[in-house]
């Protein structure tokens, strides 16, 4: 009977290059979410506005009487604004448990005992949320631009609005980064995904309600930086070169968003640790 060598053996498999471990977390997270039927339903629902807008563009391109439905920069701005509802629910559905569930199951220590840095762990979780947010903002908006060109049968609109593609990429990117980082920071603050969801709703709605009170009292929209939602809307208006609904200086809005992301990054740096040192 052969007796196998049971002593220590070196790992004989391939080693992934350093800095790629986050992709494992990202892919696993995306697959987990895509396996949920309700989430798939939400994603499909989030694409319905694209279908409606595509029909609108088809009618505008084929029936001169319906020229008032023709696309403009405002159309794309409004489309991304309307996606905000889906962005909100997808952020909660996907992001609330990203770190909170790991903390609840004490899985953070296991993750960080592997050849995986904290930054890679956060990058992997960030990629999961950002992927789904871009899936309902960047992708349909870009597809809509392509659809417009296809239905019109010429490049006139695109040539007249060359800034639109970069604007879509920039706005969708900024929105995905800001919301993902804020949600990850909140997720790292609690072990309950439900509580994280409520905190996120608080950040979005409560800051907007506070701004609403200040607006009603002062009749001045310069305080829009108080609200995360209003700040993103204002930045979108500026990026898409449409008349802004807020009088806030753009640099103030950008500064407010940068401070918010900085705070979220600080929270992540403090909270995502393999060992909790109790003094």
């Amino acid at each position, binding site marked *: 009977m052969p007796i196998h060598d049971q002593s220590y053996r070196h790992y004989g498999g391939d080693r992934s290059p350093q800095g790629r471990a986050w992709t494992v977390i990202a892919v696993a997270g995306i697959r987990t979410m895509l396996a949920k039927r309700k989430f798939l339903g939400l994603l499909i629902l989030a694409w319905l506005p694209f279908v409606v807008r595509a029909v609108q563009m088809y009618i505008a391109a084929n029936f001169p009487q319906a020229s008032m439905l023709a696309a403009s920069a405002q159309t794309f701005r409004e489309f991304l604004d309307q996606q905000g509802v889906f962005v909100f629910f997808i952020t*909660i559905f996907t992001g609330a448990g990203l770190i909170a569930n790991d903390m609840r199951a004490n899985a953070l220590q296991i993750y960080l005992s592997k050849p995986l840095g904290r930054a890679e762990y956060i990058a992997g979780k960030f990629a999961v949320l950002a992927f789904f947010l871009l899936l309902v903002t960047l992708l349909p908006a870009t597809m809509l631009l392509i659809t417009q060109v296809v239905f019109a049968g010429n490049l006139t609109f695109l040539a007249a609005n060359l800034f639109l593609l970069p604007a879509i990429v920039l706005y969708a990117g900024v929105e995905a980064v800001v919301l993902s980082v804020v949600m990850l920071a909140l997720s790292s603050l609690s072990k309950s995904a439900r509580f994280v969801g409520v*905190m996120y*709703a*608080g950040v979005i709605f409560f800051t907007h309600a*506070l701004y609403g009170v200040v607006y009603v*009292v*002062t*009749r001045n929209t310069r305080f829009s930086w108080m609200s995360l939602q209003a700040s993103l809307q204002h930045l979108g208006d500026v990026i898409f070169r449409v008349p802004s609904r807020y009088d806030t200086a753009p640099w103030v809005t950008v500064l407010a968003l940068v401070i918010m992301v900085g705070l979220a990054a600080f929270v992540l740096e403090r909270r995502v640790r393999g060992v909790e040192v109790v003094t």
Partner: protein
Amino acid sequence: MSEPLHDPLADTTPPAAPAAVGAPRQAPAFASAAMRVFDLSLGQMLWSRRTIFLALIVGSPLALGVLFRVLEMFGMGGNIRVGGASAAGATIFGGMIWILYLRFIIPVLGVFYGTALIADEVDDKTITYLFVRPISRSAILVGKYLAYLVTTVFVVLPSVVLLYLLVVPLGQGSLAASFPALLKDLGLLGVGLAAYGALFALIGAQFKHPLVTGLVFAFGWEQLALVLPGYLRRLTIAYYLQALVPHSMPQEGLGSVLQALFREVPSPWVSLAWLFGCTIVSLALAGRIVERREYVLEQ
């Protein structure tokens, strides 16, 4: 020998006589069981880190109140206007109750605590320990619901009273004159907490992802239905709550929009009846679901 651990759900009634030792012990009545669960849950809810955090959120409108007072102290009180006209403190207070508390804080507290009544026990895999006790399952729900009500009332009402003391004196407003309105506000917030909490307890008992469902209702359906014509707005809690608001809303801008939306409001008694009915029916349905449903704990 060590003392036995205290079990708050155990029947603590001592056996009446040696002859009764062999007889089966009576399970506590519904009300008694609900009160024991209430006692147990109240301590857990009231002194949790989450409640402290939510108390900070709920208390944050006080910062606005302080800001308004500071503005007035430095002679900039005239800039505080509602609808373009110089506003009295009572009007600003009414607006804050409407925009911050009724439209945001009350639904959020309802969503968070209401959906968590059963779902938290399922998530923590502790629901088995409650369900194996010789008490009705619906008594557990009712006990937890009462604890929710007391906790949220303790969180919200002090914040409202402090805000009242800060904001109402603005622009020579009279605390005494608007005191009855404050009492109505406090009652109104209590009714709102009861109605939203019961509804979200029902959602928490029925759905696997109650938070998303609750948020869809509170910030999706309610916002949408209120601006739709016809009877759809009657299928919201906000429609009946706003009918009880004792303040007149601002006359211009956002205020006039709100006023236009809520021009046709039911009478206060009709609203109270609907809210009370909604609370009772939601709790009864939630109790029925909890009694019948088999909660499968994820491994």
